[in-house]
């Protein structure tokens, strides 16, 4: 009985995570190639210059791109001890409140990250070795933060619908 909106949001969260996964795989391959290059210095090869900087930028992008799917699949850690017997409706309402707070936090996070990007751009800050502007990495990371806010906002709606329908909220929890 899933709505079209639910499917759409899941697709968005999924493909954002895949973009993050692609970045993570690139980080992985780049690191391995760099190690191989470093061990073959005698043969005229060498490590990839600035590999640490690329790992850092890639990880930041990947982690933020992973947040939406975590939110969508209820992956955040909660302590489910006192309210487990309170019934479905109150629980769905509490979820709605928690998701609303999460949306507010995500929005603040995105807003501050955006201002941080503007700062880095106006200072013209670059990385140490590769000299690429840091605000590029901020801009890439913003994508994940913005989608995270969107998915959070959707989960508020989802909890409200669940509280009205009284249907059991599927529990997935951390994997």
């Amino acid at each position, binding site marked *: 009985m899933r709505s079209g909106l639910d499917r759409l949001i899941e697709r968005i969260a*999924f493909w954002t*995570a*895949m973009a*993050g*996964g692609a970045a*993570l795989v690139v*980080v*992985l*391959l780049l*690191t*391995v190639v*760099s*190690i191989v290059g470093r061990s073959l210095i005698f043969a005229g090869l060498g490590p990839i210059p600035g590999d*640490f900087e690329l*790992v*850092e*930028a890639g*990880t*930041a992008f*990947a*982690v*933020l*791109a*992973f*947040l*939406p*799917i*975590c*939110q969508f*699949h209820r*992956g*955040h*850690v*909660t*302590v*489910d*001890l*006192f*309210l487990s017997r309170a019934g479905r409706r109150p*629980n769905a309402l*509490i*979820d709605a409140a*928690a998701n609303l*707070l*999460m949306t507010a*936090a995500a929005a*603040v*996070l995105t807003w*501050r*990250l955006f*201002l*941080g990007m503007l*700062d880095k751009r106006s200072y013209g800050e670059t990385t140490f070795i590769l000299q690429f502007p840091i605000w590029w*990495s*901020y801009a890439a*990371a913003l994508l994940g*933060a913005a989608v995270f806010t969107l998915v959070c906002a959707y989960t508020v709606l989802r909890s409200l619908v669940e509280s009205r329908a009284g249907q059991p909220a599927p529990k997935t*929890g*951390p*994997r």
Partner: protein
Amino acid sequence: MTSLELGVWSFPLLLGMIFLRIPIGLAMLMVGFFGTWLVTGSWTPILAQMKSLTYDTFSSYSLSIVPLFLLMGQFATRGGMSQALFKAAETWLGHRKGGVAMAAVGACAGFGAICGSSLATAATMGQVALPELRRYGYSGALATGCLAAGGTLGILIPPSVVLVIYAILTEQNIIKLFMAAMVPGVLAALGYMITIAVYVRLKPGSAGQRARAGYRERLGALVAVWPVLVIFTLVIGGIYAGFFTPTEGAAVGAAGTGLVALFNGGLTWRGLGEAITGTAISTGMIFFIVLGAAVYNGFLAFSQLPQETANMVANMAVSPWLVLLVILLCYLVFGCVMDSLSMILLTIPIFFPIVAVLDFGLPGEEMALWFGVIVLIVVEVGLITPPVGMNLFVINSMAPDVPLVRTYSGALPFVLSDIIRIAILIAFPVITLGLVRLLY
């Protein structure tokens, strides 16, 4: 209210929010955010901090090890290595009394050497070992209990995600921590096997018999686990020898397990998508808590609470061992309702400065390693204690015919084994530190 009082009051507030089922990371983020506002009396510091904090936290080079280790574990679960490990352990141990359960524990220990997460270890080995355990007539309680306990080896035997977080929080050398956890990890596996041996003798009928495997079969099964050995040696050996950084080691390990999964046909496009989804959900969960903890700990530092508490404890004329005991009891109690990573992130900034000023007759660094390993074991006990033991839930959900209460009772002997081992490790720090002293 003074800043110190704000710091003190933030704790019950935080716990209240967590018990109202607000995600732990969010609760820490909010309390830290508003707490910093109250302590500094202005919005400027916290808003300025938030401009770069998110990016700085998520782009930390030492933290980038976490998604890579998680990806490595995801590939490992798809690479058929769990079957090979269990088969090898079963042919060597299976014919003993309770042998198939011992084999499950041994295979968990082996899988823990390429996977840094307890839940993944429990889930993966559960899929392989649970049907076998039931086939040989092991009781539901023993079968689910030993797998839930075996899963905790995933995080104790390096690589370990929680140890990475502890190392970053306390500014310790990750590889020394891994070395320190090695012997206690092997002891844990042996302790669980002894527990099983005692259990099946006290409760006859809880385990069936399996025929002895021939030596040809045993050697063949042992040869099949070579990828696990190669990857573990390459990752841990390479990091130890200084050939690569821990993050690079994690990348090598992920590439290695990925290759094995590719050759065993576990890494289709679909499998890759699932591996990335699994990594994404765990990574998102961990990093969101790390971010919340960064904001909260920033607030605590403003409030001076950790320093003041440490000073207060140092000036109290109590035995350091008593303080340690109280701290460990706190972990055991909290562990019943909280997961290990949140507990570490929440408490280490407060407990570590306290422990650091106490005299246990160990130099500073050794004390940090020893305390880290003991805390890791204590928080892992929380994974197999009711009412909220994640490993128990994971394994129990795979055995629909076993009531949760049976799983609880099956796990209790292993909790006892854990507590005995913690006492031994506290009494003899050399067990933890011996390998580190030998190698450095």
